[in-house]
């Protein structure tokens, strides 16, 4: 992925009141950027994140990835793109509690397998090798068999990051990734994300924490659905 371009993006939640969550928003994100989208609660930053992540495609305006309009993509193509190119990290980690850390990470690749053509699919062995490798990279070598309930908040978020990066996506979209963590752990997680950005991964973080936003290489602010 080279470039993301949002042109005149608007989104209205309540059609009756025509209250716009995003209002005529324009944004260009280059590959390898580390962007923070800041704003108060309700400013539309999460909505923007989900639009960027192709999870929400019910909006007005134009969205281009490498000059290709995503509005022209079918549901299947959107899923394929989301599966291959986008990794989400959430505030509440959102790990599947019945699965161990390694299974949570592997799940991402298993879903990826469903959208890949037969030749590109990974074997079960390869899936677990890649998952192990990613967890080790994030310092979770000794916690791979543990379930989310047995891990600390910071460890869970690392697993969530591992889950999002194991498939080597073009970009990671993080929605308040440190919102549920203490200061020290938040710093660790940010270092982790910065490290990934150093490796060339595009990272977009939604946060209302200026300190976290300050660590990003670029910042934009949303106020009432408008970039300022």
């Amino acid at each position, binding site marked *: 992925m080279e470039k993301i371009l949002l042109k005149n993006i608007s989104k209205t939640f309540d059609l009756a009141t025509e209250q716009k969550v995003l209002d005529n928003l324009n944004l260009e994100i280059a590959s390898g950027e580390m962007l923070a989208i800041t704003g108060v609660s309700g400013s539309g930053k999460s909505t923007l994140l*989900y639009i960027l992540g192709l999870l929400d495609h019910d909006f007005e305006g134009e969205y281009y990835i490498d000059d290709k309009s995503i509005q022209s993509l079918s*549901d299947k193509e959107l899923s394929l793109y989301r599966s291959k190119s986008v990794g*989400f990290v959430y505030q509440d980690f959102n790990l599947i509690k019945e*699965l161990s850390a390694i*299974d949570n990470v592997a799940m991402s690749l298993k*879903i990826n397998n469903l959208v890949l053509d037969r030749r590109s699919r990974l074997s079960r062995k390869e899936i677990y090798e890649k998952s192990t490798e990613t967890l080790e990279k994030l310092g979770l070598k000794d916690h791979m068999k543990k379930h989310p309930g047995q891990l600390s908040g910071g460890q869970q978020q690392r697993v969530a990051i591992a889950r999002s990066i194991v498939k080597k996506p073009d970009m990671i979209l993080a929605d308040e990734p440190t919102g549920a963590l203490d200061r020290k752990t938040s710093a660790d997680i940010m270092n982790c994300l910065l490290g990934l950005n150093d490796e060339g991964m595009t990272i977009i973080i939604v946060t209302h924490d200026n300190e976290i936003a300050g660590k990003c290489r670029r910042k934009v602010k949303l106020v009432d659905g408008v970039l300022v």
Partner: protein
Amino acid sequence: MTELLRFFLNQQKKRHLLTCLQYVIGTFAVLISLSFSNSADFMTRIINSIIDPTVVQISMTDSNEMHKEGFFPIMHTLDDQIGSTVENTGALVFEKETCSMEANPDNVSVIVLNKNWKNYSQYAELFTGSFFSENGAPCLPAFIGYGYHDLFPDDKDTTLTFYKEAAPQSFIIRPIRYLDSDDYFFSGGAIPVTESIDVAQKFILVPETDTYAFDNSSYMRNLLMPEGTSKNDTVELIRYYATINGLSLSKRSVESAMKDLSDRAKPFIIITLVFSGLLLFLSSIGCMGVMLVNISFRKKDFSLLMSMGLRKKTLSLLLLMEGLMVSVVGYMVGVLLFELFTLIWVDNPLFKPSPSAFLITFLITSAAGLIGEAIPIKTVSALDPIRIIKEKN
């Protein structure tokens, strides 16, 4: 897909187990129902395929005498035949339609079986469902048949296990050895489906041989039927012996007899079918409820999987497969339970549905499962992953 299916099946195990249990009950109920209703099926088959039996009706004129000694004395005379040879056997069967051990029978049916019927199942089928207790419930089949020689070690009387517990005082099976054969001709009684033995079925066997089994004190003599005796002559001879023993005999067609049996079986069949249909419907509703709960508990996980790229269509397909697997396992366990039930409690090889009934049951169970899953799966397609992901844990 397999990996994901495995994950889906491992999630919410208890709820899957509950759904599975509902399928088990549904399958079991349908199989039981079809076993009963199979009697209607076999009647049709009898009429269509079995060689022209003549069914005659006997009215007892001396019921007190009949009651005093019943048919047992006649059966006992079969002792004389042990060790003797029987070349070929036709059978005359008396069914006391409504009698209990204490009641005086006013009517008994006599069915003359064609001597060419050497197949046990043909006899068995004839009798399955043809006996009814006073309240109209069908009895388990009485039987007259061939084979089962290993049931009679040392040529001694034996009691078939599946009758033993239900009617220990009654139906001892008496073997008669065939000439140059290890096979036996044997007779047995019928028991009501209900556990109480308030109905007794009695039989008299009249071998068409030149060996005499019955003495003059019996109500029926053994019939000496030369080889090649026509059916009409046989009936005439039966009528003769019936008359001299105070019985009157009138002939009626097999169709009429079968219709009569079928009419009597109908209400019971309808009741069992309605009952099992209701049970399946409830199972289906139950499955739907469990599936809805099951899905609502996993909505967040589904949303996450979607954010990772899982399509709603694939998710619905996975849930359908998950539901089908649960229903298939439920069906298999239900069949196993049914087999165990019939083996341990009914223990009668004749109490079984036709082979196609298993397929029908599978289709019915799957259909109930699909109905039960349709609405829950529809809720998946309406999932809003963004809203669900945003919800706090």
